[in-house]
C-alpha cells in the first residue's frame, strides 16, 4: 500500500492528525487499534466544550468515523516495524503488509511496560526482562516464558525460539493478529492459557506461577506488553527518544528526522486530551505539507 502520510496510533492525537492531514488533501492512513488508546477506558471532564462526564471510547469512535469521512483509511492492526525507505518510510503491520509513505506521524501514546506481579521487580536482570531483542542472547539453550497478548509478545516469542530451548507464551487473551500467532506456533512456541500471578526463584528466576495454581519452570520471563513501543518505533525511524521514553519535537511537531512528526502523550507531559488533540492538528497539517513537498 502507498500513502502520503502514515499515522501510527489511533488515539486522540493520531485521529486529529488524520483529520487535518486528510483535510489538506493528503492520502492518509491511520494505523492502530482504538482500544489501545489510554482514552479508551477513561472518562473526560476537562476537555473544551464537553460538559459532564463523557466516555472516552465514545469520543474515539466518533473521531475515527470523522477521520474516515474526511477520506482517511484505517488499518485496525499494530505496527510491528518501521524503516527509512529511499526518500520515504516503510511501515510494517502485524499481517506482514508494508505501507510506503512520504511522512510519518508517531502518535502511539506511552507504553505500559510493567505487569505488576510479585517477583517482577525483584528478579529484574535475574531472569525478568522487558526486551527480548536485547537479552535473547543470554538465554541460549534455556527455557523462557513470554508474557503479553499483543503483537510485541508474538514477535518476541518467535525471536526467542532461535535462542531458547523452550519458549512458552502465556495466553491470557491473545489479541495479536492470527498470522503472527501462527508464525510463533510454527516456530515452536508453546502457547499455554493462564494468567501470570507470581515469579519465584532463588538467585535467578525459576518458576512462573499462574492463577490456576499451575507452575511453569523457566529460566527467563519476558514481559512484552502491547505493540512495538514508541521508543523502538522512533529508533526504527532514526529518532533518538529521551531517557524518559518521550520524543522531542519543535513547535511544528517535527522530530530530529525530516518528515517524521510526533504528537500526543508520546511527546511528554502533560498527558492531557487537549494537548494531544492540539499537537495532533499541528502534526497532521505539517505532515501533509511535507509529504506533498510544500514548504
Amino acid at each position, binding site marked *: 500500500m502507498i500513502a502520503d502520510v502514515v499515522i501510527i496510533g489511533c488515539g486522540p492525537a493520531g485521529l486529529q492528525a488524520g483529520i487535518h492531514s486528510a483535510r489538506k488533501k493528503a492520502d492518509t492512513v491511520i494505523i492502530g487499534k482504538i482500544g489501545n488508546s489510554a482514552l479508551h477506558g477513561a472518562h473526560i471532564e476537562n476537555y473544551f466544550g464537553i460538559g459532564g462526564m463523557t466516555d472516552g471510547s465514545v469520543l474515539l469512535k466518533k473521531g475515527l468515523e470523522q477521520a474516515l469521512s474526511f477520506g482517511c483509511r484505517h488499518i485496525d492492526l499494530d505496527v510491528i516495524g518501521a524503516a527509512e525507505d529511499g526518500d520515504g518510510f516503510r511501515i510494517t503491520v502485524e499481517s506482514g503488509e508494508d505501507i510506503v509513505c512520504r511522512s510519518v506521524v508517531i502518535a502511539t501514546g506511552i507504553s505500559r511496560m510493567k505487569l505488576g506481579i510479585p517477583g517482577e521487580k525483584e528478579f*529484574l536482570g535475574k531472569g525478568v526482562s522487558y526486551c527480548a531483542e*536485547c*537479552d535473547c542472547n*543470554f538465554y541460549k539453550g534455556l527455557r523462557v516464558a513470554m508474557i503479553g497478548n499483543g503483537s510485541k509478545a508474538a514477535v518476541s516469542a518467535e525471536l526467542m525460539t532461535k535462542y531458547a530451548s523452550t519458549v512458552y507464551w502465556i495466553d491470557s487473551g491473545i489479541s495479536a493478529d492470527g498470522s503472527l500467532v501462527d508464525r510463533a506456533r510454527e516456530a515452536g512456541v508453546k502457547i499455554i492459557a493462564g494468567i501470570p500471578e507470581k515469579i519465584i526463584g532463588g538467585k535467578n528466576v525459576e518458576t512462573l506461577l499462574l492463577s490456576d495454581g499451575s507452575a511453569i519452570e523457566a529460566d527467563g520471563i519476558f514481559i512484552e506488553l502491547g505493540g512495538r513501543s514508541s521508543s523502538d518505533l522512533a529508533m526504527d525511524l532514526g529518532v533518538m527518544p529521551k531517557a524518559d521514553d518521550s520524543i522531542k519535537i519543535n513547535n511544528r511537531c517535527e522530530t530530529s528526522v525530516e518528515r517524521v512528526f510526533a504528537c500526543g502523550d508520546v511527546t511528554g507531559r502533560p498527558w492531557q486530551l487537549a494537548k494531544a488533540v492540539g499537537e495532533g492538528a499541528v502534526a497532521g497539517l505539517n505532515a501533509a505539507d511535507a509529504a506533498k513537498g510544500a514548504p
Partner: protein
Amino acid sequence: MADNQVSVVVTELTDNTFDEFVNGNKIAVIDCWAPWCGPCRRMTPIMEELSTELKGTAGVAKLNVDNSPAISVRFGIRAIPTLLIFKEGVLVDTLVGLRTKEDILEYIETM
C-alpha cells in the same frame, strides 16, 4: 549538536582489560551493552556525558557483552543495559535497565 559540545569516546573494555580498569579507579561505572540493543544505544550519549562530568570522581567505561562474554558470565548479567558499579575494586551495585544521567549522578554522589 551545538558547536561547543564535543562528543567524548567512552573507554571500551574487554574481558582482558576489565580488571585493570576496575582496580585502577576508586569508583568505576561500567555500562554493559550491545549494539543491537535499542535501550543500550540510548545509554551511549548518557555515558559520554557522564564520562566528562565524573572525571576525577569515577572511571566510566563500556563493555560490549557480545565481544566479552566472560564478564557477563562472571557477574551473572542477563539483561542489558546493565551498569556495574565498583568501589575500591568491589562490586557494590548492579543497575539494570535504561537510566537517566541524573539518576546515575545521584547514585554516585551517595557513594
